[in-house]
Each structure stands twice: as C-alpha cells, then as structure tokens.
C-alpha cells in the first residue's frame, strides 16, 4: 500500500488546500520529512523518546471481566491511556517536535479540543526547550479546565478562541491564521490525521506505532489476528494509528466510532463519516458536516476531542474503499461506556475513548460465536471527571 500519492491524495481525498503563503513551507516539510523517514538516527531518536520518556510499548491488556460481561467478545485493550500525559497524543507530538527541531523552528503552535493534544504538545515543547502557544476554543477551556492548567504549568501560553462555535474547529482556524503569519519561525503541530499534506501521512506514521505493537502483541498472545479493531474517531488519529498496520490483513474488520452527540436525527452530533458530505476544510478534502450552501456546520459531542465537523482524509478513503466501517454512539451511550469500564475493569477512560467502549455493547449483540477485539484505549478520563460529575 502506498498512500497518499506524491501530491498527498488518498484517492479523491487529502491534498493541500491552504493559502499560498504556506505552500513553500509545506513543500519544505515534505522534503525534510521524506528524508527523516528513512533516516536511522531520526528513527532511533524518536524511538528513544517513545520508550524512555513516553513509556512505550503500552500493554495489550486482556479485559477479562469486560469480556465475561459481554460473553460474545474477547476484548483486549491497547493501553495508550498509560502513556505519559495520559493519551496517545504524545506519540505524535514527540515525532513532530523532532521534525520541528530539524527544521530549526523555535516556536511551536497547536490547536486542541479536549486539551490532550495541547498538553502533549506543551510537554514535547518543554522537553525540547521550545516556545509554545496553544489555541483552544473558549467553550472547551471551560469544560477541560484541568488540562488548561496543565498546559500553563508546562510553560505554554493558552489562547482562548471565541469565534464561531468556540470549539476545536475554530481553534484550528486560529492556529492556521497564526501559522500563516509566523511561518518563518513557527512549526504547527497538528494533532490529528488531518490538515494539508504531509500532515495526515506524518501523523499517521507517528501514531502507527499503536497498531504495530498491538498486532505483534496480539499474535504472541493468541497465535492469530483479531477479528475486530475498534477505536473512536474525531479527527481520527488513534483509530488510524491502530488500523494502519492491519490494512493488508483483510479479514480483520475495522470499526471507527464517531460521536452521535444528542442523536443523529437531532442534527447535533459529530458523526462526519456517517452523515457528512465531501468537502474541503483546514487544508484537505474529506468528509464534512456542512449545509446545502457548503457552510461548515457546528458539531456537537460531549467529548471535546470528538467535537469536530471534519475527519482525516485517509478515513474517508478507508470508508470509500470499504476497508473500515464507521458507526456512531450518543453522548448518553458514551457515558454508559465510561461507567462500564470503570466498574468492570477499574479503568476510567476519557469521554472520547468511552465511545469505543460503548460500541462494544452493539458489537457483542451483532457477532456470531465468540470474536476477538482490540479496542484502542486512547486516553484516560481524569480530565473529564469534573465535567461529568453532574451527569452521572
């Protein structure tokens, strides 16, 4: 498999839809990254930080009580929540910060929804001694106060974004505006498999360690491949990280779980692949929630990290060619998933991750016989405890 093509296209998706000011930089980044990708020194430095700093490899944990609860599923959890900073996001920020250093950029910017990517970026920037500014929607700042404080502790400046829906989409608009303005010294660490080429590819590559490890661990334990992979999808980086290494294992079914918010029929959701139409936002062509006039709709999800009207272009491609299936669960179901994992396994998952857990209930009812599943436990839920206190 060799996607994207050299122009950054995954079939009809992807590409580079950005203001001209950024084009030279993106070409530069493409060239630098292409060299680094096959550079042994870079690879070993990246692996060093993943291992010694972030805590890789993460465990592939057989969730026995949860499996017993569902009866028809044998569930393994890929424990990305155990990584430093509490989510898979650190895999990507460590990779990108090393690229930024190679490009001699002195200033890091990032957008964040739940704050997990913001924290992971602030962490990587602190580790490398780089200046760091994070853009975060004003609404998200409120519902993720703990992560805001963490970013500040780590030395980052957090800029509240008050335009539009005051969430992730608007934070990304503002980060791009900063990037266009400060392109000479600034590296934009995009947090998902989204944005203009080469970002979707680069972020996928950095996150693909999840699936590489999980595949090896599963085969060692079970002497076969899993029947299903399940992961939540906002922009889609943890899902792509898990799925990518299984692309050619055609019998392994991949399921991305989107946020149905208040329900698909309510119109208040973030189920981009389930309900969206093809369009262009934030640098690439992909599925989008949009109006009949091509204006971007405001997404909704209880999970700030899924609250985004777009999705990474490679997921659109996976859907189009039928390699992965995309489903959705509501806010309420996600809270149910969170409670279930707490009680069955003593693990508090992030609200984003809880969507993947919640889907297991539907999957358990659907399958015939007993099936094995790897769930990407993308993040831990400490950050959400305060905001869901009143809902439980």
């Amino acid at each position, binding site marked *: 498999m060799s996607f994207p093509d050299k122009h950054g296209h995954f079939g009809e998706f992807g590409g580079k839809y*950005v203001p001209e000011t950024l*084009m030279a930089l993106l070409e530069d980044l493409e060239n630098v990254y292409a060299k680094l990708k096959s550079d042994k020194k870079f690879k070993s430095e990246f692996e060093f930080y993943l291992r010694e700093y972030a805590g890789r490899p993460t465990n592939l944990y057989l969730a026995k009580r949860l499996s017993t609860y569902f009866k028809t599923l044998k569930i393994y959890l890929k424990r990305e929540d155990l990584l430093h900073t509490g989510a898979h996001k650190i895999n990507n920020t460590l990779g990108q910060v090393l690229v930024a250093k190679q490009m001699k950029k002195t200033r890091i910017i990032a957008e964040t929804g739940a704050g997990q990517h913001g924290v992971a970026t602030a962490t990587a920037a602190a580790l490398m001694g780089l200046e760091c500014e994070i853009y975060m929607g004003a609404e998200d700042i409120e519902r993720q106060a703990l992560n805001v404080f963490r970013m500040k502790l780590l030395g980052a400046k957090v800029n509240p974004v008050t335009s539009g829906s005051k969430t992730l989409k*608007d934070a990304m608009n503002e980060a791009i505006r900063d990037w266009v303005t400060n392109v000479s010294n600034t590296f934009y660490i995009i947090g998902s498999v989204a944005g203009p080429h080469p970002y979707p590819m680069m972020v996928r590559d950095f996150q693909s360690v999840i699936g590489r490890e999980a595949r090896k661990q599963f085969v060692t334990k079970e002497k076969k491949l899993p029947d299903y992979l399940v992961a939540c999808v906002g922009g889609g980086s943890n899902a792509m990280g898990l799925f990518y290494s299984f692309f050619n294992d055609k019998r392994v079914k991949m399921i991305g779980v989107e946020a149905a918010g208040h329900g698909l029929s309510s119109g208040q959701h973030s189920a981009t692949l389930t309900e969206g139409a093809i369009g262009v936002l934030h640098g690439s*062509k992909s599925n989008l929630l949009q109006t009949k*006039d091509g204006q*971007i709709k405001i997404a909704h999800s209880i999970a700030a990290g899924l609250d985004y009207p777009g999705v990474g272009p490679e997921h659109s491609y996976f859907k189009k060619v039928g390699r992965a299936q995309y489903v959705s669960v509501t806010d309420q179901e996600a809270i149910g998933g969170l409670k279930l994992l707490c009680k069955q396994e003593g693990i508090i998952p992030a609200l984003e991750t809880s969507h993947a857990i919640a889907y297991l209930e539907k999957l358990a009812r659907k399958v015939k016989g007993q099936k094995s599943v790897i769930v990407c436990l993308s993040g831990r839920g400490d950050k959400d405890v305060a905001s869901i206190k009143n809902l439980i």
Partner: protein
Amino acid sequence: MNRIDQKFQELKKKKAFIAFITAGDPNLQTTEELVLAFEGAGVDIVELGIPFSDPLADGPTIQAASQRSLQKGTTLEKVFDLVQKIRTRSQIPICLMMYYNPIFHYGEERFVARAKACGVDGVIVPDLPPEEAKSLIRYARAKDLATVFFIAPTTTQSRIKHIVQASSGFIYYVSIAGVTGARQNIPSSYVKQIQLAKRYTKKPICVGFGISTPAQVKAIGKMADGVIVGSAIVSEIFKNKGNKNLVGNVSRFVKNLSK
C-alpha cells in the same frame, strides 16, 4: 473579451484600484448600491467576498463581516442574483472572492457556468493553490472566467512560474505573510517578488493584504499594476452601520484612497 482584461487594456499605464467588500454586509441591497457607487469613485474592479463560516485566511475585520452577512442569510445563489441585477446597470468588472468549499459543494462546472451567466468576470480562492485547481481552471478557461491565483512573500521561484501560468485576469500578490487586515507597515519584499514574477509574465500583478491608506496605495502603485484594499473599506462600512449616508460616506472614503 473578459471585462477584467478589457479594463487593464483601457488603463494602459494607469494603475488599477480594486475594492473588496463582503457581499451582504450590512445587506445585499447596500452591496448593490455600493458597487454602483464605486464605479464613480475611481474603482476599476470590484471583489465581492462570499461569506464563509470558516474564513481562515481572514483577519478579524473580514471575519466579523462574513459572520454578519451569514446571519443576514447571504448565500452564493443570492450573490449570483445580485450580480445579475448589477449587470443591468453597470459593466464594472466583478470578481468573487471566496473559499473553496462552497464552490466544490456547488459543483465546479455548474459554478463556472452560473457565475459567467450572471456576469461575474473572475474568481479568487485563497485556500485553493493551482495544484488543486486543475479542473476549476479547465472549466473557467472554457467560459473565459478569470482565475486569479496568489503569489506570497514566501513563494519560491519555481512556484511563481507555475502560478503566473495558472492565473488569468490578474495575479494577486499578498504583501505580507499573514491574514487580511490593515497594517501600519507593508514590508518591501513585494518589490523583489514582483520583479521576479514579471520575468515570467506580462499579466497584471496587483498587490493586496494590509493596505489601508492613500499613501500606501500610492507607494505600492508605483511598482504594481494595481492595488487592492479590503479590510479598510469593510471597516468603513461597519462604522457607517445604520447611517442613511452609508453609501455616500463609504464612496468618499474609497475615492480618497483611489485618487
């Protein structure tokens, strides 16, 4: 011949003054009156901004104008109707400046046909570099709709060659790395970049982004084939919100810039 090409031919050595306004801010009726009044105020080409929910190349002034316009219910279809109406009274060249998603969603071929039929002369899409515009260029060429692409201070020589080829009508030089909006100082890098671009093309090169004062217009006009002012005019419209003399006041402001 396209009205834009014709305009530059008429102007000869004179510099084009290009005015940007957001269509539908404060409402479409006022937009119509402004376009008609601009013709007498020294404006050579009008850029009509189509409001978009996520204008990531725009600074606060045009962001706010887009938001106001969307709240008024402005759509691409309504702006097409507006241009058609303007065409019964004026032949001033009109470009649509808009983000790519509404074009893509409308359908490129259908968009070009409808734009041309209404009397639109060109289209400027800040988030669509020529690499991703191949099909749009093909449809636009077939109907003689101009496709204006950008050169930025960061644009490399090899890209400049490609961009001037893809462009028709004129080439938009972005004076500063950044978003739209008035600036105190315009860096002088435009001089070198325009000289470089001129080696590869005879097409007019106009400079925009950040330009807000008559002195800036005059200084940049020495070097470029035209000057584009946007945010400063949009601010002036907002300042005159609710004022019965809005059109007159804004026209005077524009006249002062263009002379």
